Every structure is written in C-alpha cells, then in structure tokens.
C-alpha cells in the first residue's frame, strides 16, 4: 500500500486564509453569530461574466481548487472528490421559494441546476477538463471525511496518483433562519472568538471552501501524510473507548499524539464528547480548536484539516487556536476529532512528512 500525502492546501474561510503565505497572524472576530467568508477577488480567477452566474459555493470551490492546483503545480488531477452538507443551498432556497411564490410558474432552470449537490465538483471538472472519477459526498459532518477516505483508498491502492478533494458549503439566509427557530444558532454571543465561553445551546454558523491535492508521491512541499481516517455514524460507548480503539488500530498510544484538534462548537448540549477527550484521555496533550474562527458548517472539519496541514508543515501552532496551556514545540502526529450534534463522528490522523 502506498502512502498518501497532502501536497497542497487552500482555504476560503471567515479568516483571510486564501492568502497561503499567512497563517492566522491576523484574526477577524465577528460580532454576530453568522460568519461569512473573507472573499478573495474571484475575478482574478474566474472571468467576470462566468462569476456573475456562479453560486457562491461554486465560486469558492472553483477558486479554492485553482489555488491548490497552482500550489501543487498541477494542471489536472486523476479524480475530483468533494464533500458538501447542503450543496449550493442558496439556489435550493431560490428555487423552492420561486415555486411557492409563483405557484409553480415562470421558473427558470438556473437555480435548479446549481442546487444539485454535485454542481461544484462538476464545475471544477468542467473548468479543468477533468474526465476522471468525480464523486460528491453529502453526509452532514462526515461529508469531507468521506471524500478523504475515498481519495485515500484510491491513492494507497495506486488507482490514482493525484486527487483534488475539498469541503465546501455556503450560508443560506432562509436555512439559517430555520436553524435559528430550532435553536441551532446561539443568540447570546457578542464576539465569535468567545464561542467557547458561551454556556448556551446552539453554535455560530459559517461557510467556506477548503481544498487539497492529495498524492501518493511525497515532494519537497508536501504538508503531511494522511495516516488514517475513520467515521462513525453514531457513538454507542464512550468517546474515550473509541479514541483508544482508533489509536490502537494505528499501533500508537496517547503520548504519541503531539496535538489534538477538536471540533468544539460551544453547544452545551453536544460538546460533551469533546470535553471528555480534552479533560480526560488527552488532558496532557496539546489541544487546539477552530470553529470560533470559521463557524460551524457541515464541512467545517475541512478547515480543521487545513489547520492541521499547515501546523505540520510550518511546525507552528497559531496562538488563537490553542485550547490549553500545554506547549509542544514539535509536531509529529496530529489527531483530529469532529462530530455535529452528537452524530457523524470522525477521527483523522496526520503525520509530519
């Protein structure tokens, strides 16, 4: 089996991450519970006429994919695998409301077409004329991890040599309102950076596109090795047991982990598994978190993956992500753990390469 490497990264998020020379030196805090992305200048990458027609998710996905291909000096890839919880949800909203508002009349196809979940993957393929394998995973907080697992299988079995993967989701106004009425969204947050100080239910919402090229050949600019990714639809025992099982399956122990990156989103009803790990098994391990920076969305964990990749290559942990006071100066193994509302848990293990 071949090893799998992260060979380039790109992030469009609520932070100015699209500039890959930066690494969270400057941080944006938001005085609201909905965090839009800091937009790159899309027109630098997409012809203006095309950009006007594109949904936000497509724009973010297409530009993030251009950035990673550029960094990896690749013109094409063998496969494109994307994860998205909701696809281009604004177009879904547009089409549903048009159906209702106009009693199924005077509709145009554009928003219907863009609402299809695999639109971003399809548009990226169209843009670079990639005729290879093209999958889209839409499984809530495991959408991105599904893409990662699929790509990893393909690369380790040498069915492909370079694969573009990414997680992308956009904020939709109506959908956000719906989540608000069922208390998925906090109301008591003054500053997004203070997310974990909140003692209320719900979280803050975000959007973004985090894309990567993975390959089964390491090069001088590779960020990290993808050692393992494992998903669980539910949790039946304790998260501690599951974490131990996962580590054992990789033939490592807790002390081998130099950093654990957790997907805490400040929801008092669902942060218990994160707290169990940070206060228990990994209490003596350096800890980081990130949803105060990018907000929660179905593919927010792809931002965590971006963070881990940058930490491993730069051997530097941005202060704003620190969750405890432990300082490890060198990073070899980084473990990521994520879940959303108590479902779709995942462990991802990366290693310095």
């Amino acid at each position, binding site marked *: 089996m071949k090893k799998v490497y992260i060979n380039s990264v790109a992030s469009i998020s609520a932070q100015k991450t699209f500039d890959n020379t930066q690494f969270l030196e400057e941080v944006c805090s938001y005085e609201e519970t909905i965090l839009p992305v800091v937009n790159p200048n899309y027109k630098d990458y997409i012809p203006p006429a095309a950009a006007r027609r594109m949904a936000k998710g497509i724009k973010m996905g297409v530009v993030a994919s251009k950035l990673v291909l550029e960094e990896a000096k690749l013109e094409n890839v063998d496969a*494109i695998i994307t994860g998205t*919880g*909701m*696809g281009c949800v604004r177009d*879904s909203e547009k*089409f*549903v409301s048009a*159906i*209702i508002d106009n*009693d*199924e*009349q005077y*509709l*145009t*196809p554009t928003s*219907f*077409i863009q*609402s*299809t*979940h*695999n*639109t971003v*993957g*399809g*548009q990226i*393929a*169209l843009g670079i*004329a*990639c*005729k*290879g*394998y*093209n*999958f*889209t*995973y*839409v*499984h*809530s907080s*495991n959408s991105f991890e*599904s893409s990662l*697992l*699929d790509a990893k*299988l393909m690369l380790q*079995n040498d069915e492909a040599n370079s694969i573009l993967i990414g997680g992308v989701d956009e904020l939709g106004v109506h959908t956000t*309102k*719906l*989540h608000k*009425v*069922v208390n998925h969204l906090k109301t008591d947050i003054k500053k997004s950076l203070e997310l974990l100080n909140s003692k209320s239910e719900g979280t803050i919402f975000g959007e973004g596109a985090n894309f990567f090229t993975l390959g089964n050949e390491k090069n001088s600019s590779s960020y990290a090795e993808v050692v393992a990714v*494992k*998903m*669980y*639809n*539910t*949790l*039946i025992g304790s998260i501690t047991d599951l974490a131990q099982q996962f580590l054992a399956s990789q033939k490592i122990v807790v002390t081998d982990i130099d950093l654990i990156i957790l997907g805490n989103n400040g929801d008092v009803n669902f942060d218990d598994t994160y707290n169990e790990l940070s206060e228990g098994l990994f209490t003596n391990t350096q800890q980081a978190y990130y949803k105060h920076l990018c907000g929660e969305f*179905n593919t927010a964990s792809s931002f965590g993956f971006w963070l881990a990749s940058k930490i491993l290559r730069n051997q530097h942990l941005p202060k704003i992500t620190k969750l405890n006071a432990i300082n490890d100066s060198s990073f070899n193994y980084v473990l990521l753990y994520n879940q959303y509302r108590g*479902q*779709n848990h995942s462990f991802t293990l990366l290693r310095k390469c």
Partner: protein
Amino acid sequence: MSKGVAITGMGIISAIGNNVSENYNALIEGEKGISKISKINTIHKDAIMVGEIDFTNKEFEEQLGLSADNNYSRTAMLGIVAAKQAIDNAGITDINKYSTGLISSTSVGGMDMTEQYYYDYLENETHRKYIDSHHAGDSTQRIAEHLGIEQSLVTTISTACSSAANAIMLGARLIKSGELDRVVVGGKDCLSKFTINGFKTLMILSDTYNTPFDENRKGLNLGEAAAYLVLESDKVVKAENKKVLAYVKGYANANDAFHQTASSENGDGATLAMEQALKVAGLQASEIDYINAHGTATGNNDLSEGRAIVRVFGNDVPDFSSTKPYTGHTLAAAGAIEAVYSVLALQNNVIYPNLNFKTQMKEFDITPQTALKEKELETVLSNSLGFGGNCSTVIFSKSQ
C-alpha cells in the same frame, strides 16, 4: 485487491412493486407503473406522468411502526422499506457480527417536507421537527438506525442521477480493500415539486409514457423509488455459507466535462465509464450479454448514451434496453433500481423489453430489445448518467 464482491441480498420499492418479486413480475409481464400524479398537488398534474408508489406517508408510518411525532421524510421511509428487505433477503439476523457499513444516496433528501413547510416553519412550531430531516444525510442515518448499524461507516453520495451506481461502486471498493466485510448500498428519492418543476424548466418532461431510444421521444417521466443491495466479502460468504445472487464484477465513474446538465454529443464520459468498468472487470466488450441502459428518453441522453454504446461495442452491440418506461426516472435511486433488475436478469436469464419503442433513431442503427427475451446471461452492464457530467457503469456477473 483481487477480492470478490458478492451480492447476497436485495430489496426494492418502486412504482411497479413493493418488493423484489412484484417488481420482477411487472418486468416480465410488461406492466408499466406510469400514471398521472395523485399525491402531490402540482399545477403540472395534467401535463406530466410519473412513476408513483401507491402507499401514502401515513401508510408507510404505520408499516414502519413510527410514532406520531416522527420526522421522517418520504425519502427516508422509502429507503428503510427497501433496505430492510435487502437485509432480510440476505438472511442477516445479527448485523453487527461483521463490520457493516451503509452507503446510501439521494438527490432530493427531505425536500418533500421542506417545500411543504418552507415558510410555515417560521410561523408555526408544528412542523419544525422536519427541519432536521432536510439534509441529504438524514435519510441515510435513519436507515442505519432501522438496520441497527451503529458506530460504523455510514455515508451518502449525491451525484444526481448516477448517485446509487456510485454508492454500489464505493461499497464494492470498500469490500475489496478490506475496509468493511459487509456493506448495504443503494439509493432513494421521492417525488417532489422541486424535481418536477426543475425538470419542467429544463423542458425534458414527457406529457405521455416515456419512450427510450425512440426517434420521437419526448422526454422523461419522473419516478420515486428506493433499492438496496447487500454486498459481502468472500470471507463472510464462506463463513456463513451464503447464497450469492450475483457479483459486482466491474465499475467505473468518469466525467463528461462537457456541460453542467447536458451530455456531450458523442458520449465521451459514458464511453470512458464503460471502457474502464470493463477493464476493472477484466472482461472484453464482447463478453457483455445485456446492457441495462440509462435510457431516460430525453433527446440528449439517448443520443449520447447510444453513441457511447456504439463506440464501446462497435458492430457487436449486445441486447440492450431501458427499464425507465416501467418505473420512470427515479433519479438518485435509478442505479440501485437497475442493479436489482440486472441481478434479476442474471438469475432468470431474461432481457426485459424496452417498452413503448416504435421508431428507429436516425443517428445510429442500434435498436433496443422490444420483446421479453430468454437468453443465458453471464454478465450485465448497467449505465447511470447524471448532471455534472457524472457517468457511471457497473457490471454484474453470475460468477466471480
């Protein structure tokens, strides 16, 4: 990576039957499930025909023993019905005896409820329970729950009309690579105003029975359905002395990279998918006995797919037919519906008629099989082609 992928169980619910045997009987009797729509109050009801499942949501809730405050979308209920049949058919009593995953697919997810309560959600509390069931992964989680699949690999694929074929493909790869011993794969989609109006704006809905590969085809009929297959590794088959229905022999996904919704005129993506699936299967084109075509009866699909078939099979095109005239186009579920039909074809050595065909297409001289044909079958190739240029082929075989 040379392990076999055995199909040991299947389940289905579609417009032509509530289980595998009802579907098979309708297929060989030539009974269509296409009618005027009755369960969705759309202004297009006189202008379109659909493949609708008889049961109401209420009847499904009773069948599944769901409590009154359940928040299941119709998509989820269709999926649970079919997936449970598949597990029963595979004779599985202890789902967690082997590492078992679920790879499902959908395109509409919980849109049926979202479009009903879209504004109402903000005003009234009554239906807010459905907000959580909108996203595409929800229906998959519900199926896993009903099958007892816990703390395992469960995910959802959405690549438009090729979704379920891709779920089968991923499942097969997970078995081959040893990630799982057993995996339930398939897809589900219910009818919704969203898809009816979407396809209407694309002007590809027929006002009458769909006629795949016919010169005068007028477009597709939408359908609702769910189908699941149980895939098991050689290890499980051996240990449990399992009866194998058929094998997943080859598969491939390729992208047309031509247009967001239309297929390229020469079917580049479909050609690549079929060629690569043959390669994975280790088969020559001449070894395919029957093609269950995607054949949606849109002008664009049938031309593109037909040309791709000619490119791959040359002058020796095997018998082919589309079963969309029976079920309608069931979108994300189509690949799983047709996988079940392909396995039934292998088991019974029959080729289903391409119903409603009258006039030969001008662009090529291949003609679908129009009458039921009995023939010894070793292999069946099934195509599923979708928006986003997504082209998938799965090859099923009698022997490993």
